[in-house]
């Protein structure tokens, strides 16, 4: 009898996902899907609200990457009032750097959560370890000193966010055309030099270096397993600057293939000319793809692995991250890296990159500048805006329109997890074929392998569906007739 295996909810990813694996009479995998079954709502909720509420309102989609949503919305509002990139206006140095500081702080904090809390325990204990051990609380018991450092690192990232946005979650910093405050010298010095109970920036960089080394050690011991696990082809997408290096806050969108040849490069305001979205009846999450290449060839990977594949290098003022990136690039001889678990290597490199970028900003006197906002004439109003940033999980887009009274009439959000939808489904299929194919018994380790594959993307399904609230993973098994024969909920 053929069977269908369903994993629901996928543990330790944000939001609620369900994995179904269909097995035939010989227990061979015939299909595997990641379903997202939560209803999306924010694009509708925001309609009718005053335009200036959007960055405050829509950041509440997520408790992890809220700064990205806030900044993306702010960039869209810049456009809307005629003070944005769509009107050819360059933001003033102080507000742009303040925004960047908050953005990098969140990336450091978010990546630290994903990498150290969720992924490192798996690296240290193995994916076959019992669930109660392979999580950060297992790490607390096994290596409290490491956890102490991680707690300090996350706390420091939160202090950056708090210094910029006023509070550690869902704060307000950006306003249309700029920001509402600069960074005081006292706040700057506290982050640079640390204090009792707070790391200095140099300690943060040291800990970030250790994070990269942790992956190197793990990789050395488990090279074959790590490299073989879910090698998934896809295009890679990121915002880049004029040098072709990743810019997490602003740039043009570049998409490269496995040879790192550019297959598309465009101003993100034109995204509708390049991207289409497919839907499936079994998932609320859409499937974006490049129109020109079609759905199969035109799906992209975003996030840490996508970014390090796209970026040519990092700037010379982030030397440690630049060296770490060169080692990463050398590993695949300059080709794009499609090894799913190397996403965690890329994530560790980006923690270091963020830390070095923050150090550079903290030493920049523009953060104490007094010119905080551009206020254009009423006649500059465009009523439409698009914002894109590289959120921790990948390219994030907000697109709004408002009427002349300032009420939002349209909102479209394309989040990183949605961009990764196809590649995540390919990953689930690859892992299922590797670990489940031909096996009569479904083990805990096999189930977890599927989760590991999904978790590499650090997906935020509540972001992807714009739903609210805590959503837990479910896995189910069906026979060839579609009858449920097994189900596990963790």
């Amino acid at each position, binding site marked *: 009898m053929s069977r269908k295996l369903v994993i629901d909810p996928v543990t330790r990813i944000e939001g609620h996902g369900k994995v179904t694996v269909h097995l035939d009479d010989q227990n061979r995998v015939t299909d595997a899907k990641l379903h997202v079954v939560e209803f999306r709502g924010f694009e509708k909720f925001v309609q009718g609200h005053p335009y200036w509420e959007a960055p405050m309102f829509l950041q509440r989609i997520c408790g992890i990457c809220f700064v990205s949503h806030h900044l993306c919305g702010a960039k869209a509002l810049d456009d809307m009032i005629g003070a944005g990139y769509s009107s050819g206006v360059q933001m003033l140095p102080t507000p742009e750097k303040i925004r960047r500081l908050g953005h990098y702080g969140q990336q450091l904090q978010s990546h630290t959560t994903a990498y150290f809390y969720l992924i490192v325990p798996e690296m240290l204990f193995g994916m076959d370890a019992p669930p109660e051990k392979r999580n950060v609380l297992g790490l607390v018991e096994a290596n409290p000193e490491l*956890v102490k450092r991680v707690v300090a690192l996350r706390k420091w990232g939160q202090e950056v966010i708090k210094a910029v946005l006023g509070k*550690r979650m869902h704060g307000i910093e950006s306003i249309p055309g700029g920001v509402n405050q600069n960074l005081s010298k006292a706040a700057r010095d506290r982050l640079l030099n640390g204090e009792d109970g707070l790391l200095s920036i140099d300690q943060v960089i040291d800990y970030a270096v250790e994070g990269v080394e942790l992956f190197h050690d793990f990789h050395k011991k488990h090279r074959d397993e790590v490299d073989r696990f879910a090698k998934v082809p896809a295009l890679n997408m990121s915002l880049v600057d004029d040098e072709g290096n990743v810019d997490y806050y602003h740039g043009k969108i570049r998409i490269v293939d496995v040879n790192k040849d550019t297959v598309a490069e465009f101003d993100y305001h034109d995204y509708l000319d390049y991207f289409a979205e497919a839907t499936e009846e079994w998932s609320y999450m859409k499937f974006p793809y490049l129109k020109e290449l079609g759905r199969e060839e035109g799906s992209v990977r975003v996030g840490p692995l996508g970014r390090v594949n796209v970026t040519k290098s990092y700037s010379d003022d982030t030397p440690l991250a630049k060296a770490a990136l060169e080692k990463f690039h050398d590993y695949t001889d300059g080709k794009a890296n499609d090894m799913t678990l190397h996403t965690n290597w890329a994530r560790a490199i980006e923690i270091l990159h963020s830390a070095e970028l923050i150090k550079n900003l903290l030493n920049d006197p523009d953060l104490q500048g007094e010119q905080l906002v551009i206020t254009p004439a009423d006649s500059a109003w465009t009523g439409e805006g698009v914002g894109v940033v590289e959120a921790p999980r990948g390219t994030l887009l907000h697109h709004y329109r408002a009427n002349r009274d300032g009420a939002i009439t349209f909102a479209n959000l394309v989040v990183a997890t949605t961009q990764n939808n196809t590649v995540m489904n390919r990953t689930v299929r690859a892992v299922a074929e590797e670990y489940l194919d031909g096996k009569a018994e479904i083990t805990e380790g096999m189930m977890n392998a599927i989760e590991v594959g999904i978790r590499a993307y650090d997906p935020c399904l509540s972001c992807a569906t714009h739903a609210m609230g805590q959503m837990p993973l479910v896995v189910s098994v069906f026979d060839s007739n579609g009858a449920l024969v097994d189900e596990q909920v963790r």
Partner: protein
Amino acid sequence: MNKCADVAAEHGVLNLADYDHPSALVYGIGNVGRQDDGLGWAFIDWLEHAALCPQAELLRHYQLHLEDADLISHKQRVLFVDATKDSQVDTFRIERVTPRMDFSFTSHAISVASILATCEQCFARTPDVMLLTIRGYEWELQEGLTPAAKNNLDATRNHLISISSLTEPIRRYQ
């Protein structure tokens, strides 16, 4: 004695006067944009408006994070206040928290017991931690408590005031 008081008696009296000290923390968990999820913050609002525990550190956060283990390691006495959907809780519940790795962790959720266990393991400190949960009913995208949740908050406040007035108000941290 009502059911709430039974619970309180079972786990020890929560005397608000014990928290009127700089080494105490009262930590409201919740989201005022989600109806009754705002109960934890509403409790903090009440402390502030009534000028109770003026020496304590009062915090409002959306959710717990592992670094809260570091935060509470600097305190001697901590009161977490949260809303609960648990139908076993009639109005409110007061419980003393013991350190326990209960593996509830996701990056969106971690238990108070796990925070305390992490504090103990990583920072070699075990503050006295109490958890006050107040029953809520609605979690929709809307500001303001439901009338039933507001009644529960009022009952909690009345209970704590009565208990605090009955117990020795001045007991500090020698």
